[in-house]
């Protein structure tokens, strides 16, 4: 329970802490791992040499993300009516689905909830409790995909020392979440929706482009030249809403300290590297640990890990099998 709370604090912006107590099992694992340094280095090099770079999870994820968004598009364009609406609210073969953050802001601004709104919100809530909350970000949100692509450009420029990454405090996103909620209540308008690139892009895909794409373009420029993945990392309240929803989700990425060489490749590709703090030597208190609610389950770390220390797992299911 203590770790769950720490992870939630971490999602809200707190810096990761060193564990107070490391279990005996982990102590034993670490002892054995470093007992023979030559063997350790050999094993590490061996694992590296035999690691075929894989994009398995990235490709699956992109396929799902694109397919989901295209299903919205074609439901309207070709009138196949499977998934009608946009990401903020839709009907899947007639069933209401309503984005949790959009629903929250409509409720806060309008202060009135009708049955359909409640049904759609509840359905989506259950869906993302099961599927891992922030998986919405990496597996569905169209802005995430664009930002991933421009992130590559940013990293290329950083590599050549043309730009430097400016980090903000991760707690900024929590402040944004509270401010936008407050603004919805006080002004009576869904203020965040005006700037949400998720909604803007989803509507642009389905109903045709508009000037609002200019704002999305500015955000991407900011991320390329100033701060890596700034919107998703430091601003977007949708991510925090889904993070909270997925806090106890059974679907997660788990870390197995036994297989880890603590090299940190995973932290370099991660959108939210603080969730991978456990992969630093001496930070894992248990043999197996879930990465927590802020993890978007994007699978970049799973793909890049040469030893299989990071895996997709359904909580409870692995024990059962």
């Amino acid at each position, binding site marked *: 329970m203590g770790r769950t709370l720490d992870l939630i604090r971490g999602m809200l912006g707190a810096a990761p802490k060193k564990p107070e107590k490391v279990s005996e099992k982990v102590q034993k694992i670490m002892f054995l791992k470093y007992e023979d340094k030559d063997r350790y280095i050999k094993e590490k090099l061996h694992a590296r040499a035999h690691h075929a770079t894989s994009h398995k999870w990235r490709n699956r994820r992109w396929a799902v993300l694109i397919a989901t968004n295209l299903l919205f598009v074609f439901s309207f364009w070709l009138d196949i009516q499977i998934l009608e609406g946009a990401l903020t*609210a839709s009907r899947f073969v007639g069933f209401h689905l309503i984005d949790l953050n959009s629903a929250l802001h409509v409720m806060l601004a309008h202060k009135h909830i009708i049955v359909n*709104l409640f049904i759609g919100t509840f359905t989506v809530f259950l869906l993302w409790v099961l599927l891992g909350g922030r998986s919405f970000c990496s597996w569905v949100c169209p802005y995430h995909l664009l930002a991933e692509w421009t992130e590559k450009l940013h990293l290329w420029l950083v590599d050549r020392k043309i730009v430097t990454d400016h980090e903000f405090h991760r707690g900024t996103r929590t402040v944004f979440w509270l401010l936008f909620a407050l603004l919805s209540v006080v002004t009576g*308008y869904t203020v965040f929706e005006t700037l949400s690139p998720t909604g803007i892009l989803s509507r642009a895909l389905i109903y045709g482009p508009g000037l609002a794409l200019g704002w999305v373009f500015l955000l991407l420029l900011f991320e390329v030249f100033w701060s890596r993945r700034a919107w998703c990392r430091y601003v977007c309240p949708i991510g925090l809403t889904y993070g909270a929803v997925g806090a106890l989700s059974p679907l997660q990425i788990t870390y197995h300290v036994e297989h880890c060489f603590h090299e940190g490749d995973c932290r370099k590709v991660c959108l939210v590297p603080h969730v991978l703090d456990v992969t630093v030597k001496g930070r894992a208190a248990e043999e197996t640990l879930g990465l927590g609610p802020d993890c978007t389950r994007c699978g970049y770390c799973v793909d890049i890990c040469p030893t299989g220390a990071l895996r997709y797992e359904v909580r409870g299911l692995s024990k059962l099998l």
Partner: protein
Amino acid sequence: MSEEGKQPAARKPAVSIEKAQKARRKFLQSVGLTVGVVGASLLGYIPVSSARAPHLRPPGALDEEDFLASCIKCGQCVQVCPVAAIKLGDIGDGFGIGVPYIAARDQACDFSCDAVQCILACPTGALTYHKPDFLGVRPGAPLAQAPLLKAKAKDPEPRLNLKERFGLARLARPESCLAVQGKGFKGQARGPEFKGEMRYVDVDRWAPIPVREHPYEREICDLCVSECPIADAISLQATGDGRFIPVVQEQCVGCGVCEMICPLETAAIVVDGRAPWQGGA
């Protein structure tokens, strides 16, 4: 004061000046980001509070403030409209981004759907058949009786489930109106390029067709009256010496068909979104 100042220094481990500066810079930049983004979002107020003519919203829309608050910007109303009359606001509309409106001159709501489908499609009640009591009703908005849809005149239930008008027609340029000048009209109402559609019951009861495929020939132009989908919403009154004037009646709901069909370069009759009925003129 000096004692209090000393205490944290004693407890906290020493932090290098460089690290402290870095943390401070990060904090200030984070504050800057917050102020910047929230400031940008509040620019959305400008179009909402500016005095320009309000958009014509789809039928069943709550009053403007409530409508902007309750609309979830999903466009499901856009998807069900058989004549594609509903458009979504862009970033220039501020808080009205993604919120549906009707540009009546380009494509009016002609109730081809018979049942006001957009209201059915709305997941949040921003478009509604039954307005919650606590929201109140604008003066001049309630309709004396449910509007009778001419196309459904022979059906057992010919009336639309609409309790309030969403706009009101107004003869804005009587001097240019063909009927007022005693003139007739012949040809395509809006020319061969016009993309707008309308349902003509005598052509096809169920499917709308392009307006350009339905030419007219009238001794006295009465398109705004004859094409109005609602019974008793507008009438042509003789003013003597062969001239006529279109007069908007209390049953007008504000659908905008008269504005769309007016064959002049600039429509003589227009629909004002949210305009109240003021007892006839």
